[in-house]
């Protein structure tokens, strides 16, 4: 019997061996990325084995996995939906340089000079607003307006612990410094900004009218607009002297020690092609192309003032302030100080005492009944 068990496990494990394949970890939303990968599989004949991130641990989960697997890499390619975490991987020496010929026309500040990663198909951090709850004149004009009392309880954003929101926080730390950024986040908390798990949820609750507006990515707004929901998209910080809107490209990279290097290069070339960017722009994810000459997504303005960003500095700041953000947003409720109040601790002891008492009474009652029987 044990032999049968071992054999069955071996067969299950080895059953899907493929000659030409590429393993890709993907942090872009599964529904958007799967179409692209399936098209690549059909056109190239290379079997793609994707593994997708979940909304709960966007990007950081995949990066953690890649770091854990560094001794024996499983994935060949990582398609990240942002680039600050990509730089963390680069700093740990987990990437392999490859300069794709298809990346030649992508602007230099969206790709690594040494070829460790290349940006493509960007998203902007925008305001999503419910047209039935606010008029265009009433909207926040810049990110700092979220702390304005007139928007108290009306705004939502994702917790800056994962994905593009974490990148956004890193960029703010890098541009404005630690104290101003932390103060801004504390003001958001104090003003009743609703912190969600991810950007998708922010767009959802705005479209449902739970809150009037929120900070999210262009693709999340686009999905809701395509569903015919009454939501609008606004680029923040566009005034004179404002920093501009943060644009975050997807980034693609080959992992060091990739088991299928040749196939990985073919996939990276395909992802960096103009066709893929056009497809991502046309699709529900409405990504903004970085190749000049590729038509932008419908409904997303292409002319806007974008923020000048040093992603490497943002990545460093994420590492420096990860624990601070975790203190503020990783607990039961977002809290400016990060410390649990004494009443919260009292609740713990009350709960444990209640549990012990309840169990004790139940046990005693049961024993009494058993003895009587």
């Amino acid at each position, binding site marked *: 019997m044990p032999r049968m068990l071992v054999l069955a496990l071996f067969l299950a494990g080895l059953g899907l061996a493929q000659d030409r394949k590429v393993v890709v970890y993907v942090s872009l939303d599964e529904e958007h990325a799967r179409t692209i990968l399936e098209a690549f599989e059909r056109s190239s004949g290379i079997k793609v084995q994707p593994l997708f991130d979940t909304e709960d641990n966007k990007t950081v989960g995949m990066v953690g996995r890649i770091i854990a697997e560094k001794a024996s890499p499983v994935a060949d390619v990582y398609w990240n939906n942002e680039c600050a975490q990509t730089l963390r991987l680069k700093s740990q020496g987990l990437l392999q340089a490859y300069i794709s010929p298809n990346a030649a026309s992508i602007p230099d500040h969206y790709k690594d000079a040494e070829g460790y990663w290349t940006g493509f198909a960007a998203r902007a951090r925008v305001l999503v607003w419910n047209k039935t709850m606010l008029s265009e004149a009433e909207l926040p004009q810049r990110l700092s307006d979220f702390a304005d009392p007139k928007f108290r309880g009306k705004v939502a954003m994702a917790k800056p612990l994962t994905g593009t929101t974490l990148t956004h926080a890193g960029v703010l730390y890098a541009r404005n410094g630690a104290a101003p950024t932390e103060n801004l986040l504390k003001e958001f908390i104090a003003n009743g900004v609703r912190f969600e798990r991810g950007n998708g949820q922010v767009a959802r609750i705005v479209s449902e009218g739970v809150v009037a507006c929120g900070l999210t990515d262009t693709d999340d707004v686009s999905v809701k607009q395509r569903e015919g929901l009454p939501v609008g998209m606004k680029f923040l910080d566009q005034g004179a002297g404002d920093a501009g809107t943060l644009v975050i490209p997807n980034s693609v990279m080959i992992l060091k020690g990739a088991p299928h290097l040749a196939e990985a290069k073919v996939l990276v070339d395909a992802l960096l092609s103009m066709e893929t960017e056009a497809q991502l722009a046309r699709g529900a994810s409405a990504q903004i192309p970085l190749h000049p000459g590729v038509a932008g997504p419908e409904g997303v303005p292409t002319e806007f003032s974008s923020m000048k960003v040093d992603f490497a500095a943002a990545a460093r700041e994420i590492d420096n302030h990860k624990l601070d953000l975790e203190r503020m947003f990783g607990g039961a409720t977002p809290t400016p100080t990060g410390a649990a109040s004494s009443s919260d*601790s009292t609740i713990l002891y009350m709960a444990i005492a209640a*549990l012990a008492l309840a169990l004790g009474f139940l046990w005693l009652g049961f024993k009494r009944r*058993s003895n009587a029987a």
Partner: protein
Amino acid sequence: MTALPRVLLGLIAAALCFMPLGALLQQGGAALQADGLNTIFAGSQVDVLLANSIFLALLTTLFAALLAVPAAAALGLYRFRSRALLQGLCILPLLIPPHIHTIAWTRVLGDKGWMALWLREQGWNINIRAPLAGMDGEGVLAHIYWGPAWVMACAFFPLMALPAMAALQRLDRDAMDAARISLGWRGALRRVALPAAAPQLLTGAVAVFALSIVTYPVVSLLDTPVLVQKVYFVFSQVDQGSGTLLALPLVLLSILMLVVLLRLERHLPPLVAQRIALPQPSRAAACVALTVLALSAGLPLFALLREAGPLALDGGTDNYQSVFARTGAAFTDSLLLVGTAVSIIGIGALLAGRMLAQQRRPLLDALAAVAFSLPPVAVGVAFLLQFAAADAGEGLMVALAAGALAGALSAGSLRLALMCALCTSAACGLLQWALQAGLARSMLEGGAALPVLGWLALYMPLCVRLMRQAFAATDADSVAAARVAGLSLKDRFIAAEWPAVAGTFAAVLLLAWVLCFTELSAVLLLLRPGWQFLQIRIFNMVHYQSAGEVAALCVLTVLLTVLPLTLVWSLRRRRRA
């Protein structure tokens, strides 16, 4: 059966159960040395999260009792038309995965749920995600998350209702009648019926508590700040050391609950085969049973069907067709993965159950408890770690050593203990070699083995335990008679044992099917590149896909979960006829 195969079998089972624990303890110890508790727990509000977890589990148990007691009383004590059907339907809430329960209740009582909107018009501000004090509330009420508690109670209350119902059906009808005449209806219920079902209710309550404290998908979808969510977040970054330390309170609480459960179980009266005279007819009981079922399963299913929209019978495309076209491969992969796991669990439980039929209980009970009490997320990470590096064999060695020790202690004989030690060394050497020779890579790249192994670790001990109980209850005389008659082992099994255990075997297969098919927490971390799993597709799609398509996929998933049960039920009816 000789001792060696039994020891080998025990070692494999022990390795499966102890490997996650061994790997995690090893990583947790390393983290403790490296970072210290302060760094890990700094600012994490772990105490508040743990308090929330306990409150949530207590509230879930309370809600489950509120659903289970009336349902058990109505279906166990009274007679009405379609009683058998309603008794069968009582298991339906358990067959709907917790995350689908959550999605469905969000459509009812969520921010924009139809019932929440209606209640808001009546002046009641209800939101399934908010604690009792509301989103901005303070004080104790701000830590009482009734929404996830209600959802989990709807999913888990049959664990209390079904055993209590069985106890009430065995109740002495004359005593109940006498009590009703002298004490009235309520008095009889309070003084006779409830005490008779109290052990079963208590056992069920402990099980509900233990499950609700480690269930991840519900609290994730409703964004409830509890410890298991934090543990998942930390584990998902493959920060196994911190994750382990954070998970320890949950593991200890669950193990404590399961120890209580096992102790309680010993006091449960044995199952009696005979049926007692027909109970009293009652229409009110039918209404009560229907109400409970409508609340726990009917309303969520109705919400999903309403959201999914009608079938396009005119040739157009409905949500079911569009979502099936999108997720067809997920159906195939899920069936393949779960089918493999169920087959291995079925065969393994049958063989192991027969071998262990005459063994002492404590070892198997402990194994079942340890396996079931680990948060599935922790099991997922442990397996991931185990096969993430080609030289990862230390956790396995710890596990095997722990298993061998447990086996030796349980067997209580020097000879067996020596045998355990020998087998452990040999198995460790073999596995170490296999890992280094490429087994790790095969398992990681091939795909199917890792989720299947995870499910085996979680559910195999429970299934073995059920089969062992069935074999232990077979008629020893008929087995002995078959042996004396000179029948071979195979014929003896077919003639004397199989008829007695066939029912349990079918139940074990169905149980394994439901548990594996609806599991999400472990598979979320264990699914390998290139594979899809239906529950994960639902879990991801719910954040950005159209509500109609998600609801349609949920309905299809529930149908697929229920399908094998319906097939077995109809086969059984045909056989009886």
